[in-house]
């Protein structure tokens, strides 16, 4: 009993040790795709060249990053004007390229001028198709209704995507397939589709020598790259905004495409590509030292353990009492079990995104290693196995033990602590074990909302189609899960009474002889 109290105390302390790595200096955000990450790296390096510290956080989708900027969790990030109009200010029909600055100012956000390239949507075809059918612009497609179109799923559904594009240009094509963006390139190359949607700075455009069809009706909005920063940035770091403005009109579409291609082909690391560009084009000298793979994995391991520790331990402390409650009051207990069961059925991504608003409301950090969003989601997911195993463990104790304890005149509290919980301990520990292993796996999904950990290399690897990078997250995550399993098996020797464990070899079990 005493050692259980001690372990409990140590665990509790452990759960509330603050996270090791909190972002330092100026926080640069970016969205989780290569181009945004490269621009984020450029910004961080420019800041560092002024002598300030900078942390680059690769965060998530538009809403997540923009909200993080509004709340001040990040100080600046690269964005596209079209995205601001179509997504961030989508509720405002008056939003346009012209009044964007004013709309942002109302949110205490400033914007740079265009960085020099427009990363808009465009339709692309293979050069041979273009030459054979004499295709130059989108309206030329109308004459060839049998062409096979393959679009990214997003493009099929968006208001500024296929739906209205076909109306505007009077296109009648029936053979339209939705697919993943990188898959569409493969299909086009393999000639199983003829037309696809592209981003105008996609690395593959040059690689596959594709022809972009002109948008003569100016259907696609402009997606000029800009840098958004908080309006207090200049007062906090005088002179910094001027440095950032060095990037204005500095990157041509071709240069951006080249940078994307360099990173995609893995010739150089993302930060090296950024550094070379800054050096060649803007004469900004920066020191980039990419940490070794081992150092990176170690860093990710610390971040991952942080997420697991801060979610699993509180879950244990919350779930065991809930399980006891569920066992003692079966009717209300069904509600408890039902509630934690429902949480389990919410898809991870949905739960994570739903939690951003409440977590931000209470001013907790939603990003990085300390992402409370991910911690809360993991906490909720970890409850069910522990609550259920505690409740089942307690209610499946043989009635004669409960009866003996009652007839001996033991109080219900004493009975719970000294008889029932020890008898249920194998089941409770099994629940904790399940929750722990699940938690390690689920924690990788935290990267979707900007949490650190093994999820970051996995997610980035998926986006860059880089199996090696995926493995840098996936293999350690699997190892960590196995390690945790071993740890719990070892803990079992301490926590589960010897006589409730399977017999050691050579020990005689008289009762069964």
């Amino acid at each position, binding site marked *: 009993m005493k050692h259980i109290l001690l372990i409990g105390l140590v665990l509790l302390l452990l759960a509330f040790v603050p996270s090791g790595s909190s972002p330092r200096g100026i926080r640069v955000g970016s969205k989780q795709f290569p181009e945004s990450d490269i621009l984020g790296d450029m910004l961080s390096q420019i800041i560092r060249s002024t002598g300030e510290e900078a942390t680059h956080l690769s965060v998530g989708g538009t809403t997540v990053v923009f909200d993080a900027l509004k709340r001040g969790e990040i100080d600046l990030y690269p964005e596209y004007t079209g995205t601001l109009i179509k997504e961030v200010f989508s509720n405002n029909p008056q939003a346009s390229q012209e009044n964007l600055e004013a709309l942002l100012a109302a949110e205490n956000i400033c914007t740079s001028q265009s960085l020099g390239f427009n990363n808009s949507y465009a339709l692309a075809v293979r050069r041979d198709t273009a030459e054979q059918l004499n295709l130059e612009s989108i309206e030329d497609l109308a004459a060839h209704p049998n062409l096979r179109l393959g679009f990214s799923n997003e493009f099929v559904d968006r208001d500024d995507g296929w739906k209205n594009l076909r109306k505007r240009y009077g296109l009648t094509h029936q053979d339209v397939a939705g697919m993943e963006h990188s898959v569409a390139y493969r299909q086009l190359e393999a000639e199983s589709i003829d037309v696809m949607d592209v981003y105008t700075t996609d690395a593959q455009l040059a690689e596959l020598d594709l022809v972009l069809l002109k948008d003569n009706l100016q259907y696609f909005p402009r997606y000029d790259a800009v840098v958004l920063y908080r309006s207090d940035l200049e007062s906090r770091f005088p002179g910094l905004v001027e440095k950032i403005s060095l990037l204005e009109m500095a990157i041509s579409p071709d240069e951006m495409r080249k940078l994307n291609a360099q990173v995609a082909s893995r010739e150089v690391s993302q930060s090296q590509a950024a550094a070379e560009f800054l050096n060649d084009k803007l004469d900004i000298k920066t020191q980039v030292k990419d940490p070794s793979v081992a150092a990176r994995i170690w860093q990710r391991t610390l971040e991952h353990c942080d997420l697991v520790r801060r979610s699993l331990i509180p879950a244990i402390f919350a779930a065991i009492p809930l399980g006891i409650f569920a066992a003692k009051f079966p009717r209300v207990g069904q509600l408890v079990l039902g509630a934690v069961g429902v949480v389990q059925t919410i898809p991870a991504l949905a739960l994570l995104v739903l939690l951003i608003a409440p977590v931000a409301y209470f001013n907790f950090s939603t990003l990085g290693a300390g992402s409370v969003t991910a911690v809360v989601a993991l906490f909720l997911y970890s409850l069910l196995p522990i609550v259920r195993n505690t409740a089942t463990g307690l209610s499946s104790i043989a009635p004669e033990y409960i009866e003996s304890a009652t007839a001996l005149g033991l109080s219900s509290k004493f009975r719970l602590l000294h008889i029932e919980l020890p008898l249920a301990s194998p089941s409770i520990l099994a629940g904790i074990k399940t929750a722990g292993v699940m938690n390690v796996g689920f924690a990788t999904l935290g990267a979707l909302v900007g949490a650190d950990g093994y999820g970051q290399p996995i997610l980035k690897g998926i986006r860059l189609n880089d199996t090696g990078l995926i493995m840098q997250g996936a293999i350690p995550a699997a190892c960590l899960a196995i390690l945790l399993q071993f740890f719990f098996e070892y803990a079992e020797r301490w926590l589960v009474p010897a*006589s409730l464990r399977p017999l050691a070899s050579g020990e005689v079990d008289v009762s069964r002889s």
Partner: protein
Amino acid sequence: MIELRGISKRYGAHLAVDSIDLECPQGKTQVLIGTSGCGKSTLLRMMVGLVLPDTGTVLFGEKPLTEQTISEVRQRIGYMIQEGGLFPHLTVRENVGIVPRFLGWQSARTNVRIDELLELTQLSSAMLDRFPRQLSGGQRQRVSLMRALMLDPDVLLLDEPLGDLDPMIRAELQQDLRTIFRELGKTVVLVTHDLAEAGFLADRITLLRGGKIVQQGEFADLLEHPVDDFAARFVQAQRPVFS
């Protein structure tokens, strides 16, 4: 010492105990006997408050058993069931010492009492650090008896205590139980379905059937003057070993 007055208990449509009056006098061994499902165990469990009667009163030393008195009364009762009901995660010492621990005894006091009981139940002190599953059936029952006697209770309630033992061990334990009962002069209520065991241990015997008392009194009376056909058949069902 323990008295049941007008006790009935119904489980759904089944009337398990049907208006029973029963007295267990001080210092005597009262045996409840009958076929399975006759209500004998239910009566015993009512005496320690594990089952509450629908109607009627359980008197313990003249005072009625209520929610308020039950925890105090339980400390004056030793209760022992078939298989012993020993807690599998506790050693013999911890099982026997669980109530003193609950009551906050000094360990020296507990150890003195354990030594006395080891002698009484003729168990070796080597058993103290074993877990129940490392004991034989007979040893388990002796440990269970130790636990029941720990607080030197006024009353011992035993529910088929020897039900699951092989005949030799059973005979030995019957002998020891009788000696202990006599020596300590406790009020004992024992439930069994074994007529020979009842005859060997009982001062008074009560035969039950379908939740009702068929016959009660001296053991010899039951053998020689069964009150009805059922009592006669119950007595004759015990096959004589030598004819």
